[in-house]
């Protein structure tokens, strides 16, 4: 086996230093080294989007990224969404609950991380902009209609809560 490499990754505002094999995927690193199981793996070839995380603020497939590529980066996963102190759901999470935007919930972390990026960049997206953003995430349960509505609900709530 190839020798291990030392990496330093900041995940959800905690810094981790680990020795990893170069071939270890970021998804496996997050899930099985750091025990952050919310980043789900659906296809391992970059199509389904269940493993979507933010790397330095940009959405990325954790299954197609090697852990060593995240060295020195800031990674944000679904586990970051809930309020650390109160446990309250993030407005995106609450909107998915209220909008019935999930059924089995396996793809949901990926959808929510994609939505987090979308609403940061476009706080008031049109239906077309939402579809464009979510077009890379597969859901086999919902048929997407309730996801679209949940994202709109989240946008509306986050906008009305945003400081003027």
């Amino acid at each position, binding site marked *: 086996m190839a020798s291990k490499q030392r990496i330093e990754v900041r995940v959800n505002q905690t810094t981790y230093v680990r020795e990893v094999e170069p071939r270890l995927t970021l998804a496996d690193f997050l899930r099985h080294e750091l025990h952050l199981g919310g980043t789900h793996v659906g296809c391992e070839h970059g199509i389904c989007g269940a493993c979507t995380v933010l790397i330095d603020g940009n959405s990325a497939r954790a299954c197609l990224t090697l852990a060593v590529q995240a060295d020195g980066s800031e990674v944000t996963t679904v586990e970051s969404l809930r309020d650390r102190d109160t446990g309250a759901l993030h407005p995106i999470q609450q909107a998915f609950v209220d909008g019935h935007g999930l059924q*089995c919930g396996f793809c949901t972390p990926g959808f929510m991380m994609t939505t987090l990026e979308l609403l940061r960049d476009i706080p008031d997206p049109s239906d077309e902009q939402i579809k464009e953003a979510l077009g890379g995430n597969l859901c*086999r349960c919902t048929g997407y209609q*309730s996801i679209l509505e949940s994202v709109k609900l989240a946008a509306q709530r986050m906008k009305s809560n945003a400081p003027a």
Partner: protein
Amino acid sequence: MAIEIPTLPDQMPNDTPRYVGKAVNRVEDPALVSGTVQFIDNLSLPGMLHCAILRSPHPHARILSIKVDAALAAEGVAAVLTGEDVRRWTNPCFTAPEGWGNYCMAVDKVRFVGEPVVAIAASSRYLAEDALELVEIEYEPLPPVANPEQAMAPGAPVIFEERGTNVILSRTYTWGELDRVFSEADRVVSRRFRWNRVGANPTETFGCICQWDLADNSLTCHGAYQTPRFMAIGRAACLNLPANRIRIITHPQGGGFGGKGGPRGTDIAALLSRKAQGRPVKYIEDRMEYLLAGGGQSWDRYYDAALAVKADGTVTGFRVRLVDDQGAGAEGYGTISAAKPLAAFTGNYRIEAAGYDLTLVATNRAPTYPYRGYGPPPHNLVLESLMDCTARELGIDPAELRRRNYIRPEQFPYTVPSGNEYDSGNYEAVLDRVLELADYKALRERQAEARAQGRLVGIGVVNTVEPGVFDWNAYATVGVPGVGVPEGVKVAIDLFGNVTVAVGFNLQGQGQFTVAAQVAADYFGIDMAQVRIANTPSDVALPHFGQGGSRLGVAVTGATLGACEKLRLILCKVAAHVMQAPEDAVALRNGRLHRVDAPAHSMSLAEVAGLMLSRTDLLPAGVEPCPEATYVWASPNRNAPDDQGRCRSYLTAANATHIALVEVDRDTGRTHILDYSIVDDCGTRLNPANVEGQLQGGVAQGVGAALYEEYVYDADCQPLVSTFVDYLIPTIHEVPMTRKDHIVTPSPVAPLGAKGCGEGAIHTTPATLLCAINDALAPLGKELLETPASPHRLWKLLHEDVRRT
């Protein structure tokens, strides 16, 4: 004493139910959106090994030798499993019909690409996969049987040698005077159809962790199991263990849609654990393994079908000849998919006679498994396409032709020629509402304008009956024994009045935990937050089945109500004793136990339950200190089938009509869905948001089956689909955002009047889209009778004349 299950919500002991019938938030969701739910790959056990599987590259080959020495010596490897171990320790799985099962790994020969041949357990998945590369296998390729025609040809290679044939089952059913109605018909409308293989593809593949206790000779399997007890029985038979020494612990699942459960993966991981001295072994199927050989490939069908029609459009007969490619054996119960259409063979119509000529054939494709709908989606595509062909030939509007043939409201309960009894319905009301919702007249005008511009625009108006709440008797046709499917729960009240409903299944996405919580909360008049739903392992759970056959929402409602009713009787007895009233003078109402003759005197649930648990001295004689009750629900009034397969099988008959407006792009062959409306009737809607989710999710899968998804095999039976780049799951861009409405005709026989509703949309959407496409193609005189109506297939059809010249 007999327990009466309420068949309407207002029969519950609650004047103001707060939850049943409302789109309340799901109890499942806060954990799911937090990413903290323990899907199977989130679980690790101490000392756990990881399994990787080497799979056959050949569709049909004899195994001459397997060398595993180098793999065994590789870093981290703890155990290697081959067909020799499997032959020594296990049995082939049981099937219906009997005798078409495989071992969990290939023994002597391989029968499909992707069949497991060698499995390795190592300290990590990475190392297990490394070791697989050191395994050497010598094969002698055998001629593959690529399709049913080849399989049934004289002298064809035989896939299961001991059977002597590739035909799994061949039989003919005749219901009513079929020959007479066809000979007296003014018109016979017949077509041949090809439905290509599609599959479930839940976002989470199968996974499990198995641990064989060598001292106790028992097996514990954690995993993504859809039907835990059924899985336990199957493992007992395959692994030669007593059934009560198998413990299936089912985890929340990332979708199911039919084939979730992985018997092969479970047996392989279990045997590796046995070889590795009882260390736990995890197996997580990857997506390529799923696409090649996972449970969920379904419906690989060739149809030849006809309607007998009178001049006025009355349809009198429906004849179907089906040849169904089951793949390499019947291990996945794909055979049942050919039996289920009996439950609603003639759809929404008063067709007096029908016939079904059924041939199930083994080939060297991957074995077929259940997929949502379990057979009717292709069957309905055939029936509804023939209705549209008839409408075109007679010059009658397709909606009008259907209306003329509907079973009328006063005819329910209605027994269809194939034997099942529909409980209730009002098909014309559904049709009228959807014609209004879609503004059908305006759609036809849009179509006329588009056609005038030379565009290929079409409309599909399609209705189906969705058999809900399956029963084993529906599948007797292919050799499944039994009548009645139990679903058991235990309802317990604690010292503080909180309620726990213990069930045998786990989350899969449909929201049944929420339904059980809604029902229990309303029954006892408490807050839903006071109800907890708990999963129990298979060895201690009550008899149960779990998700399947559009059944569990209704079944868990029935079971929960039954247990609540039993508890009510006990609580009333205790309260009457304590309040010194006659036993029948106390009633449960709105969460309190009242004296009927003096309603001011009452006790709360917590008071009675607390007293039962802490003051045995105050209990009436013969009452145990146990405010808990179990109930195992099964559909009432089911019966054994006759020699033509006829019986009361599925308990409920929901129905729906879909209307789609589509445009086929002449240049690309791509179908664009311009408008889509749905009206359905599944009786009482226990949680309308759940129902709508089931509908819209079924539409998405129907879009996939109708337009994009296909397990493609080449002429040598090599699968050409191994990634999501090849197998096209619809994205948000392909699935229409649908307009929906409903009417409510409660089931008179099901708990709270609710009908099974998990599969209706996938029953309807493929037919709706194909009918719309053929309506679009009609001016060209062309028809597509094959699914998926993919861009390349439509493009070839549109351009075939050009290519010939």
